[in-house]
């Protein structure tokens, strides 16, 4: 496989990928369908921002956001059936059950763990140590700026955590499990070893005091941009959208079976962070996963980082034997 040169890197030398927006297929069908799948993403983003900006205080609550999130994801699941990107990523009952199991863990056990030792607790500890208070001036900023900064600060931290996971073996081990997924669907972002899911959820947002409404707008931004990372829907995303935001095209390349392809597009929502640091590659891939697309069972997903770490440790501590001794053992 020849691959395509992107900067100094050769992408797609190990597994098929498509590089360049001009080479990515467009939505097929009549004008109504093409219109819907071109403007759906921006419309939902601006509609939800406007909703949270103007919603009365009696409605602007976390519980409302939860139900909007459930409704929006259900709608996207419907779109996966209507206009799938790849037939080979179609959601099956088994895939849906696996994904929902991880979503469930995220809302229950992981939430408890984060409640006691998550990013906010760590930040509180640091503030207590330095006898510092939150940056209260943050609440005086315009709501939309607050919301953008909350999302950006989290995404910026996540970019470096994610990039670190691809560059440092102890962090790669828990993250590698997520890279064994072989297709992208709405809830695939939740699939991974719980250690990784905890790590990727760490943030420094606790340093800032912000208005609850800004947090809700920021959540809506994450929902209507970040969710498209893992989705099996073909969109004609507008040029400005794919320049600024992460898309399923970018993220499929990140999950491709091609090693160099997988070392690109680390940001969660804002792909311009990747553009800032030279790790963005515009393109897509259909063949995803590790080890040629081997699907991992939930049991292995839970144990893999630990068994691999144990193997690596044993390999390091194993006494070096002379070849003759090794032959005798064999």
């Amino acid at each position: 496989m020849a691959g395509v040169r992107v900067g100094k890197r050769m992408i797609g030398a190990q597994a098929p990928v498509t590089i360049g927006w001009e080479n990515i297929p467009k939505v097929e069908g009549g004008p109504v369908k093409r219109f819907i799948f071109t403007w759906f993403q921006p419309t939902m983003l601006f509609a939800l921002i406007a909703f949270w900006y103007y919603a009365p205080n009696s409605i602007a609550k976390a519980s409302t956001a939860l139900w909007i999130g459930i409704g929006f994801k259900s709608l996207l699941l419907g779109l996966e059936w209507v206009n799938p990107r790849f037939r080979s990523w179609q959601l099956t009952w088994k895939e849906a059950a696996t994904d929902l199991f991880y979503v469930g863990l995220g809302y229950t056990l992981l939430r408890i763990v984060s409640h006691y030792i998550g990013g906010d607790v760590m930040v509180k500890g640091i503030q207590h140590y330095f006898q510092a208070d939150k940056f209260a001036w943050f609440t005086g900023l315009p709501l939309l700026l607050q919301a953008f900064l909350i999302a950006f600060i989290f995404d910026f931290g996540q970019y470096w955590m994610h990039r670190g996971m691809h560059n440092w073996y102890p962090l790669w081990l828990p993250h590698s499990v997520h890279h064994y997924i072989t297709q992208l669907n709405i809830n695939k972002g939740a699939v991974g070893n719980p250690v990784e899911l905890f790590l990727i959820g760490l943030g420094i947002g606790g340093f800032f005091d912000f208005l609850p409404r800004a947090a809700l707008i920021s959540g809506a931004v994450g929902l209507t941009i970040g969710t498209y990372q893992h989705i099996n829907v073909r969109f004609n995303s507008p040029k400005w959208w794919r320049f600024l935001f992460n898309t399923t095209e970018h993220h499929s390349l990140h999950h491709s079976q091609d090693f160099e392809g997988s070392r690109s597009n680390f940001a969660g929502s804002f792909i311009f962070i990747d553009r800032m640091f030279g790790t963005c590659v515009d393109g897509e891939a259909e063949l995803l996963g590790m080890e040629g697309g081997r699907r991992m069972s939930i049991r292995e997903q839970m144990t893999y980082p630990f068994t691999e770490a144990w193997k690596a440790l044993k390999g390091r501590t194993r006494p070096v034997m002379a070849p003759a001794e090794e032959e005798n053992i064999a």
Partner: protein
Amino acid sequence: MNLRFIDWIWHVRGSLPLVHGQSSNDAFDRLDPLFRQTGTSHQLTNDTLTFAKKDQAAQDKMSVFDGGVLRIEKGAAGSVLRYDLISRALLFCFLAPFLFLVIAQFTTVIAKYDKPPHEAAKKHKPPAAMNPIDKALGAPAPDTSKKGDDDGGGKKGKKISATPAYFFAGIFTALYLVGRILEDRLIYFLFRKTLVGEPDAHWFLAMSKQS
């Protein structure tokens, strides 16, 4: 303990008649591609096919099953394919509600010890001033009441709750029921389509005939 009473949870059994005059060899030849998938091993002895799957691909049409036996039995009315398939995914989905109920109980217990900071200990901050831009654009003023802090989207006053765990226990109960019926029907129609060559459009007709 006789597992026959409970193994319907993870076993999918069924039968379908072969086309009149179809031999066992011809039937297994037609079914053969289904068992030539990644991670699938199979063995055919006489009129019995045994298979096992490991790390099966997500899009494998039989990915929900991890092993099983297909047997062709000859009777007076003709030959019949009987199958008994094992699914760890169905078993897992059946057990998942119990796992989430345990998590709910665990959450309830630790929530008792997770007391929010005493009201007096909370710092009384002056209500945040609204930015003039937001005022001009007509955004509602921030809610300064205590109630707003509990469910206002921020992290203030956030408590752990057992509700999500109960919710997912319910989700997995429904998911199991759907999966147990759906996968039973899907495999029946897959075998039927493979043996007879029936197009997908005949599914509903076949379903109504069966019932």
